[in-house]
């Protein structure tokens, strides 16, 4: 598989959220606001890429019998680094992500890619796999958050810049939003519809009609 395919497979063909169905807990937990989704996505891209590179570099050194503890130590270290950086430089995102940030350590996407890909492939491919999967996760998370926030609260929350408060209010929807979408039940419903869409999109024969 070419390097480009390694990079792009996570975005649609092997999308970690809608196709492989990994990392569901943070996906449902932090997708209430777009800013949270972007913060979580950026954190996962960093941890996934760094841990994939590190694990790929050490794949011939790490004994098979202790590979999982080694992976966890490496992943936990990068998650700790992300936590400290967010707490120092973006405290609002750090607060918003709450418990889901340290839980990246046990995010199935990170450990899954370490076990299934980085532990068996070269550094460049592992880095590209990490970036691609991370971007795929971020796009999925942002899509879910955008739909939930727009229809559930009538707002789009981004990051404040200068005089811009970071919140875009959508007239009409902000006065009478579909509140269920901001709740856990709404997240599961939306996830189901999006999964069905992706399933239909990936399973239909090429050039044919579903």
């Amino acid at each position, binding site marked *: 598989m070419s390097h480009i395919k390694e990079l792009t497979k996570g975005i649609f063909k092997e999308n970690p959220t809608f196709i492989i169905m990994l990392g569901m807990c943070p996906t449902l*937990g932090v997708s209430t606001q777009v800013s949270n989704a972007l913060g979580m996505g950026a954190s996962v891209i960093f941890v996934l890429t760094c841990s994939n590179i590190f694990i790929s570099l050490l794949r011939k050194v*790490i004994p098979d019998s202790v590979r999982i503890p080694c992976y966890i130590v490496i992943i936990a*270290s990068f998650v*700790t*680094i992300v936590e*400290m950086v967010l*707490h*120092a430089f973006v*405290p609002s995102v750090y607060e918003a992500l709450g418990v889901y940030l340290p839980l990246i350590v046990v995010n199935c996407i990170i450990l899954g890619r370490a076990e299934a890909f980085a532990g068996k492939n070269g550094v460049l491919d592992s880095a590209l796999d990490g970036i691609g999967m991370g971007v795929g996760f971020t796009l999925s998370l942002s899509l879910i958050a955008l739909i939930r926030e727009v229809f559930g609260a009538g707002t789009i929350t981004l990051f404040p810049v200068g005089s811009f408060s970071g919140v875009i209010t959508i007239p009409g929807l902000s006065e009478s939003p579909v509140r269920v979408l901001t709740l856990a039940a709404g997240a599961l419903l939306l996830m189901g519809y999006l999964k069905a869409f992706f399933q239909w999109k990936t399973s239909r024969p090429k050039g044919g009609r579903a």
Partner: protein
Amino acid sequence: MTRYLKTAIILFLISAICTALCAIVNEITAPLIAGNIESERIAALEDVAAGYSIGAETAVNDGTVNYYIPLSDGDSSAGYIVELSTSGYGGAMTVIASYTSDGAVMEAKMMANSETPGLGKKAEEPWYMEMFKGLGADSPLPATKSDLNAEDNAAVSGASITFSGVSSALIAGSEFVKGLGGAV
């Protein structure tokens, strides 16, 4: 034996490298994090001061009360701000509360905590502390959920340990303020 030793050494070296990486990042970020926490604390003090002038901090550190700060309205004493340590479902919690000189809660705010999102974390929301406001002097503060009205009882359901932690801290703070007797 050699195989086990080799495995242990590899695991140790990986852990040592990871620890060193974390230590370097901590060295850079620790002062910034401390600054953020201090800014948050100052903002919380201003929030609970209820418009009164904030005086100088006096350390107590008796296990529950960390420190107190007198509040003044011109020349007269208006009450105190007390920082309280307590514990909830997720471990240690810090509450900052302001009291009138007779021990009634004026304002309160949940600070550092590791409570469960959607349950104990509700204590961070402004409405949560409303159930304690004005109580502690003539009317007692609620010690258990059964002391609450039906609406508040339902609101804190699922997070009884958090509620007990917050209420016990506020009661201790009220008693502490009563003990000060209006002294500055």
